[in-house]
């Protein structure tokens, strides 16, 4: 009887010590794991300002935002019409063109393919008049929606705003 009690006591002590050790190691690991997350200076690069006044219809520029390329395209009426026509077609990732732009003539897209992160080629390279990702052959239309190929989602529209009529601000300043 006495030995059994002693064994229970020992089992409990071993279990408690192991649990405490595992919890301690897990807690100590957190700072190390967290050190891989974006640092303060990386987080500080939250917004990019772009002067869009020189952009002619059909012209596109690539601007960096948080180290990633953003396409800013001033669409021609034909491009807009083609994008709106796409609204009623069957899309892998359904979205209305009107919900993807703040001004119909200005298309702002994160130029990162939703497949594996390559930069698609400029406007007019893909089927549907849009963008072709050269890595694995994804075709995006003039609204940046995926139409053909392995990419699962439409090109992302980053958060953006207009400071004034000709200044585009991409991203959101962190508090």
């Amino acid at each position, binding site marked *: 009887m006495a030995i059994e009690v002693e064994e229970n006591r020992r089992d409990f002590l071993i279990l408690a010590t192991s649990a405490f050790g595992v919890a301690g190691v897990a807690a100590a690991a957190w700072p190390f794991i967290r050190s891989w997350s974006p640092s303060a200076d990386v987080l500080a690069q939250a917004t990019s300002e772009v002067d869009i006044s020189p952009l002619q219809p059909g012209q596109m520029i690539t601007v960096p935002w948080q180290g990633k390329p953003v396409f800013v395209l001033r669409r021609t009426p034909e491009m807009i019409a083609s994008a709106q026509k796409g609204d009623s077609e069957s899309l892998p990732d359904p979205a209305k063109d009107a919900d993807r732009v703040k001004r119909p003539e200005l298309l702002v897209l994160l130029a990162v393919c939703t497949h594996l992160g390559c930069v698609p080629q400029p406007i007019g390279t893909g089927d549907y008049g849009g963008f072709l990702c050269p890595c694995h*052959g994804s075709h995006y239309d003039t609204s940046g929606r995926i139409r053909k190929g392995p990419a699962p989602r439409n090109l992302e529209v980053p958060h953006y705003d207009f400071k004034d009529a000709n200044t585009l601000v991409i991203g959101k300043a962190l508090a």
Partner: protein
Amino acid sequence: MSTIMEWIDKRLPVTELIKSQATEYPTPKNLNYWWNFGSLALTVLIIMIATGLFLAMHYKPDATLAFKSVEHIMRDVNFGWLLRYMHANGATFFFIFVYIHILRGMYYGSYRAPREILWWIGIVIFFMLMGTAFMGYVLPWGQMSYWGAAVITNLMSAIPVVGSDLVTWIWGGFSVADPTLNRFFVLHFLLPLLVFGVVFVHLWALHAVHSNNPVGIDAHDDKDNLPFHPYYTIKDLYGVGVFLIFYCYFVFFAPNAFLEADNYIPANPMQTPAHIVPEWYFLPFYAILRSIDFLGSFSKLAGVVAMVLSIAILFILPFLDRSPVRSFRYRPLSKQLFWIFVANAFVLGWVGYNPPDASLFHGAIPLILIGRTSTAIYFGYFVILWLVTALDIEKPRPVPKCL
């Protein structure tokens, strides 16, 4: 001399270890040249660690300096070009040897009992090698380095729920950038040293169960075995000599044969090269990744899963193969399946090398169809091998009683 050794042996039994594990270590007498590739892989590992160590003394893991420092190694550092070309071409030979080593194990049934753990440790080493090679290729910070890193790290974003946060964490930012390069350098330095350690666990597991052999039966008495030294030390050295001839040819006469020209363009996060290809040794797996494109929004995840499974399936190979005979030398059906598997791996590599929308005969056969078929054949090997052996469809030929 002998008194010094006696003094040491009393405290640390070195002589005993060398005798039992090296010079007098019993090795089957019938090993053929396919058994050279383990020691060859170890030779390359040592070359890689030595050249890598000295390259690291001149390289700068900084996004603004990395590309320049590699050119500095090539142009300014004494024999820097030699160190770098030895290192870059060493990777190619490493994978050639490791692939032959794995295929040798598959052909002669070296994964079968009692060598399962030995086999598993080998697969772990292979995974570590792939990680090390991938991160090493990022370090020159050329266009292929950068976009290879972008594509491969993006694979992780396919993981449901945590995927995109995980990718941000690995990058240390919102794109592949300086923090990514810096940590990849540290890991590329660390991993080979870990591989070196795991190689000794691999050898420990080998010496516990001893080498398989082409006949695939257990070696029993002294008639079946030879002491490792001098019989296999000399044979392994001969293999190293042959390897060095080919290696030196590439290092001195065709050092860029396996490198991509685009990687001599500095990394540009704003522009992806028109056609990105991974290093040749990843091509078959890259083809498998791209072949799964018919599942709509699940394609990406399914492609990644298929790619990982294509190697991970090797873990269960010891249990899939139910034949009473180890060596395929006496297994006519398995032997044919094996060679189909090998030929198919080359087809996958070729598909992976070509652009995704390429085709044969002016569009008559899209490459994607060949890729899907080859992917099916790749996995089919494991399923059919299991069926053929589990259902006793294969009638093995008689196996010799001794070596």
